[in-house]
């Protein structure tokens, strides 16, 4: 028989990013250096899954999850994204504010998370495997590396046993891979991990009273100056419209003209 690990309580941190709503059609901004951001924003869907998973862990074993904190780095409106996490069931929020339209690169995010985790003692970080705006998918890995923690990436199933053993199931080509780790740990979420709940009205009202701590990068001794410069952003080439032909001969002629036959 395997020895049972001593039971422990743990704190969960869920980083959430405010990104352009995934249902919005993306348009290149007029300066050609980015996209039009004057559109509907909401929580990065992978982060929403992370929030849901944290809440489910607590619903399964209320006594072991001491707290769930949602953290966002972003402009003032990122507070709405934290409120969404609070309305879903997180306990409190941390908002690291940056001016509107500041680009915060994954490495900066990882540095900020590391600092917060060290200051506030979190044991489990559940985060989206990527954000749908920049698709970098690198923050989780960087953070695990910086902290020297274990990492279960692309989780489609997550179990935290009493005592802190963590079982992560990952979808890989042709099957499932199960990895084990031990708290403290980073878990990044994949799409099929769960289906996030709706924010209920009573919980939305309660969320208004929950605390959001506001920090500036300077408070953490960090500098978010980007290392990369975006040279240009362009739309994929437009699909050329087809034409109608009146006869087979004309079709054959056109195909010959185009060098297809």
């Amino acid at each position: 028989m395997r020895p049972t690990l001593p039971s422990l309580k743990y704190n969960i941190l869920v980083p959430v990013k405010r990104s352009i709503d995934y249902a919005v059609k993306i348009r290149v901004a007029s300066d050609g250096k980015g996209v039009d951001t004057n559109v509907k924003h909401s929580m990065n869907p992978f982060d929403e899954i992370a929030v849901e998973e944290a809440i489910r862990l607590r619903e399964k074993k209320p006594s072991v999850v001491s707290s769930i904190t949602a953290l966002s780095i972003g402009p003032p409106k990122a507070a709405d994204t934290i409120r969404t996490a609070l309305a879903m069931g997180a306990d409190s929020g941390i908002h690291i504010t940056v001016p509107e339209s500041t680009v915060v690169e994954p490495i900066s995010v990882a540095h900020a998370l590391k600092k917060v985790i060290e200051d506030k003692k979190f044991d489990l970080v559940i985060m989206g495997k990527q954000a749908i705006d920049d698709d970098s998918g690198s923050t989780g890995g960087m953070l695990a590396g910086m902290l020297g923690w274990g990492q279960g990436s692309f989780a489609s199933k997550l179990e935290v046993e009493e005592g802190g053993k963590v079982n992560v199931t990952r979808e890989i080509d042709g099957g499932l891979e199960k990895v084990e780790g031990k708290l403290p740990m980073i878990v990044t979420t994949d799409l099929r991990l769960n289906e996030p709940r709706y924010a209920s009205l009573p919980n939305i009202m309660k969320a208004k009273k929950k605390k959001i701590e506001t920090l500036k990068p300077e408070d953490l001794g960090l500098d978010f100056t980007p290392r990369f410069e975006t040279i240009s952003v362009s739309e994929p080439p437009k699909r050329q419209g087809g034409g109608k032909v009146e006869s087979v001969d004309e079709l054959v002629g056109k195909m010959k003209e185009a060098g297809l036959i």
Partner: protein
Amino acid sequence: MCQGESAQSTTSLCQCSSFGVRLSETPGAGPSGRRHPTSRTGLSRRPVAADRSIIGRAPQILHRYTTASLHSARHPSYPYQRNGKYTILTTSHVKELRSLLPHPTSILTTLDLEDPATATSTATATEDDLAFYNIDWMGKYKGRSQVVVRPRSTEEVAKVVRWCHGNDVAIVPQGGNTGLVGGSTPIHDELILSLSHLTAIRSFDSLSGVLTVEAGAILETVDSFLSNQAPEPGFIFPLDLGAKGSCQVGGNAATNAGGLRLLRYGSLRGSVLGLEVVLPDGRVWEGLSGLRKDNTGYDMKQLFIGSEGSIGIITAISILCPRRSSSTNVALFALPTYDACLEVFSQTKKHLGEILSAFEMFDKASYDAVKAHGGIKGRNVFEEQAQKEARFFCLVETSGSNAEHDAEKLSNLFESLLSASLILDGALAQDASQSAEIWKIRELCPESLSKSGKAYKYDLSVPVEKMYTLVERMRDHLRGNERIKGVAGFGHMGDGNLHLNVLATEFSDDIQRSIEPLIYQLVSEYDGSISAEHGLGAMKAPYISFSQSTNSIELMRRIKEIFDPKGIMNPYKFVLPRRDE
């Protein structure tokens, strides 16, 4: 022709059973005296089985038509005899039409005659090709026209109509053929005039928001043009409905389609500023005004809006398009009683004011049907307890221009609803996909109910406070009838538009008799309308007197006669001629 109620997709095919039955079973019940002569001779072309049953007694045969048999006999019981005054089209007519419409794809016909001179056939289509035009999308109404014309300009429409007028050829104008009352398919062999090749966007003025577009443009295409057009994107078509991917804006105007944006942007009667119409004699009525105000005489365009192709063919519309809202929110409430729905409706209007863009209601029976048929992804929207106690659900949508402003208003509304304990629970969509999921529950109501039983469907307008009383009265009335599985109600509460569904174990005339004409009498008692947004078409034409006075109907007939003295426009539907004609 396009219709309002969005999600009537896959409305039960078997509704085809109802039409003839209603007619034969409601003598003296309202439409009496307005029944069109149902001469038996007109039935000779129908399948033998159908004939026998109709001639024999009541047309019970209808409920025996299953999906499988629909291909052979889709609508066997339409009671109107073909009127002999209309010309039967032949190949020589097709040749004349061809000289009017020279483009090779403008005429589809199954009329075939080898031309010995050129050894070419006149036929350009098979029966299957024409099925798309002859049969409505539900498969409920089936015509047998052999000629479809698809003009490419207003002038060509005018030429065809002038020719039809001169040759006494009956015409069915057709848009996207997405209607629900059989208004856009021929009853017999009328020539089908499809507007699908008139698709140009003629002009758009981003200062005034006035769009001028040809009738055959697809609603969704126009809406996405308005949304994305340069140099100034961000406009919206003031109408939205489930059939938007197929229906055409001309048909929308011709049927005065209602749909999902009506609460916010009002009826098309307000947004349509002008029309271009080909009159039944082939003249073109030029009424494409961009003016918002024009008090000079009768407002002629209003006659054409909602006229269902009976007095002219709309070839272009000019319409006022508002700015697309940059901030939208969708919330769903669970409620214990209909009285609570009414109170929430009132509070919602009070708190949200101008940003309220939809207020929809569905009852538990509808919700359960959607749930049972897989329309609700994963978990329930609400907590278990609220989910169990809920009898009604209300969907609220806001559209505004300032997210913070909208959020504050919503927050005040929620506080007021929660503190008054009016709602059991509520949910607010946090992103666009959750909004879409909540909308989907409402939009799947009709389809899911059709899957839960044989659904008798009614589109009714009643004062909002009486909306559910109607459902309850039908429920009481049908209680104990073991062939009734349930009665469900949902609809556009904001517009007082109820979609009542009676779910039965089968389609039969007994069951039908137990619902009708009672349901129409109740609607009439509440000063409601028997057709809120679907129109009359062929299905409800005989029942007009439940909603309109004798004087109104008489005036309507006279209007029809003024515009279309030969009666060639969309016959056997809408406002029917007096029975002696």
